[in-house]
């Protein structure tokens, strides 16, 4: 008999539906005279999506992850990138999936590779700008390319200069978009898109906050398939509505009724970085011991916006309503968008030092009442794998048992499943002293 009632999310189907539609739209865009653009999960999609007429984007990381979830395809794509293009096999695994997909002219959701009309990217880790720069080269070198820089400093260092630098680049970006597409940017659309971005980003954070409850209403495995919408098109009305009006209320309701993600929750786990997508079974494996992955800086702030309050706690970034702001014009919209991303996206802080990551991760461990940490040393992504060993030391210093396992989010050749399970067994039964839960 499980400790708590557990049931799956009602809005689950909706999330899958939105995701499917996104890729479908991108694929068919040209048939409908719509524009196609490539960018990143962190690109300010609110801007290209504000061009007149119908526009559809394809974000590189989620695409790479979708490929990664399918080992057979993934290996084929990566070998094309490594063999035919000749890149190193330790580059970002998403990137290799993406390049391979173009080289083989295969769209993982069926059909040929849908070449974009332009690229609108932003850059913070070593790979972002180059990723699509090279993609454009492989695609024939004729895809207009724009990239702006958001690596201007950590959230606590954001002032006028940092915001101005990004906003000025965004103005250049708008000129680029209008020149490249011959379409005008629609300010009404832009303002609406920025509103939506705020809702998506802030309500995801609010939803993550709810996971501080015991039992946790969500486990990470589920959260992965939920935040993905925010990595596809956070400025989209349907996406914003999903987070604000469907997911958040439902999870709130689960907390009120003590509905758990895992009925036998007896150990709350902290994770780090992405999991090896083709091996989510690892989480199922943990559940046998009542171990539930409830928190992860990556899962929380890949799209979520946060701030540190007076008490030094991580709390959701205020929505426009909460700030009592109505967007006046283009400039106002661009500034608000930039401010939210630069101040709210704590995921970017580790780019400026291990101390930031240690600070945030230890906060999370405390606030989300974690008992242990299982850290995926992710060979597939330098960005999310920053300072992971330092972080392990920091967690152990606060008295939390922590284990690491090496793997790769999207290169199954670098993940040893049986061995990892052996290590997890050892950690859970010996270090944590837990037993498998009945049932």
């Amino acid at each position, binding site marked *: 008999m499980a400790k708590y009632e557990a049931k799956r999310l009602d809005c689950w189907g909706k999330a899958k539906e939105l995701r499917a539609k996104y890729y479908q739209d991108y694929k068919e865009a040209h048939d409908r005279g719509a524009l196609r653009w490539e960018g990143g999960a962190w690109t300010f999609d609110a801007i290209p999506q504000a061009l007149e007429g119908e526009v559809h984007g394809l974000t590189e990381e989620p695409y790479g992850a979708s490929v990664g979830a399918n080992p057979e395809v993934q290996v084929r794509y990566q070998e094309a990138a490594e063999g*035919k293009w000749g890149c190193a096999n330790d580059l970002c695994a998403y990137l290799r999936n993406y390049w391979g997909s173009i080289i083989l002219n295969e769209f993982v959701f069926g059909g040929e590779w849908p070449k974009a009309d332009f690229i609108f990217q932003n850059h913070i880790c070593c790979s972002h700008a180059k990723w699509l720069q090279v993609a454009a080269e492989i695609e024939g070198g004729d895809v207009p390319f724009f990239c702006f820089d958001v690596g201007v400093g950590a959230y606590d260092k954001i002032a006028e200069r940092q915001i101005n630098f990004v906003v000025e680049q965004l103005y250049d970006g708008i000129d680029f978009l209008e020149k490249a597409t011959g379409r005008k940017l629609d300010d009404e659309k832009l303002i609406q898109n920025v509103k939506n971005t705020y809702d998506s980003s802030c309500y995801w954070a609010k939803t993550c906050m709810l996971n501080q409850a015991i039992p946790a209403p969500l486990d990470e495995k589920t959260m992965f398939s939920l935040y993905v919408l925010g990595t596809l098109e956070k400025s989209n009305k349907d996406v914003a509505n999903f987070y604000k009006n469907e997911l958040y209320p439902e999870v709130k309701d689960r907390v009120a009724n003590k509905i758990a993600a895992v009925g036998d929750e007896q150990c709350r786990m902290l994770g780090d970085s992405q999991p090896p997508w083709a091996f989510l079974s690892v989480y199922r494996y943990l559940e046998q011991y009542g171990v539930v992955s409830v928190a992860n800086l990556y899962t929380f702030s890949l799209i979520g916006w946060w701030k540190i309050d007076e008490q030094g706690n991580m709390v959701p970034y205020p929505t426009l309503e909460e700030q009592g702001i109505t967007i006046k014009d283009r400039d106002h919209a661009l500034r608000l968008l930039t401010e939210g991303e630069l101040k709210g996206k704590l995921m970017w802080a580790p780019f400026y030092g291990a101390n930031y990551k240690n600070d945030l991760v230890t906060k999370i461990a405390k606030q989300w009442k974690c008992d242990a940490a299982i850290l995926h040393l992710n060979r597939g992504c330098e960005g999310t794998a920053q300072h992971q060993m330092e972080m392990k030391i920091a967690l152990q210093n606060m008295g939390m048992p922590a284990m690491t396992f090496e793997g790769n989010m999207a290169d*199954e050749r670098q993940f040893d499943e049986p061995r990892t399970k052996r290590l997890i067994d050892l950690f859970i039964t010996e270090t944590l002293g837990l037993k498998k839960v009945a049932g």
Partner: protein
Amino acid sequence: MAETKAVEFWRWPETSWVNPDIDWQKGQLITAGVDVGSVSSQTVVMVDGKLYAYSNTRTGSDSPDSAWKCTNMALEKSDLTVDNFDYCIGTGYGRVNVPMAQQTITEIACHARGANFMYGPEIKTVLDMGGQDCKAIHCDDRGKVLKFMMNDKCAAGTGRGMEVFADLIQIPVWEIGPRSFQIEKEPPDISSTCVIFAKTEVIGLLEEGVPENEIMAAYCAAMAHRITELLNRLGVEEKFAITGGIAKNIGVVKRLEEEIKTKSAEANWYDPDMRDKGLPFDTQIAGGIGAALFAKAMLERGKAKSARKA
């Protein structure tokens, strides 16, 4: 103990041959190539650019000894001696320690040149699978290297890897190829081609009772796949020839040809004369042949003087 007993499984038999139709005394230029590889060594002796004698032996831990052992074996059935060499070039891993050689040239250049001699001028791509290196080479119709690539700091898919494997399943290395086709159903994947981790995987399969032949098929396939990755980086241009020990492993060669959708040149002499006489064709002597031919070229072009002592 187990180790020493198993050793034999990874040993290719040693061979030597002397061309009965050539009287070396009548020859103008006697040149030799000694290829001391990390695993096996070959000595090739040519008289005026014609194959006179060769041997194929195991490399020991001391290169000069290996070079001598190999060269003596090549000449054991002949009255020709090292002193009769006009010029000798050393190649292979141990090339710098070949006592009878006046000069060294890398096995990349030598294999390309040798393949050109053995398989003919249409050869554009040469794959040389050595003990610890796998080399993909593009060359012109003279056998001159235009571009080449070698495997990285991982020995997966090298001859040595195959030997460790043979050692492990205790099947003579020369039997692996043929037996890898005697299978009922498609073999399981061996994902890790790392010599050591493949080992763990192979043991796993044996434990699950997967038939030995299927496991050999799996390993050959894995190896062929690794080589394909290297060839893809360079790009395969017809005609394509394979030299070195692995060319003898039909289990890898056939699967490789399927993967790259290119047939490799038939393992026989391009020179109709040699072909008709049925001269023995050993893919491992390509390096030695190339070296011996370079030696001849150096003398003819006055790049070197004869070092003949007798």
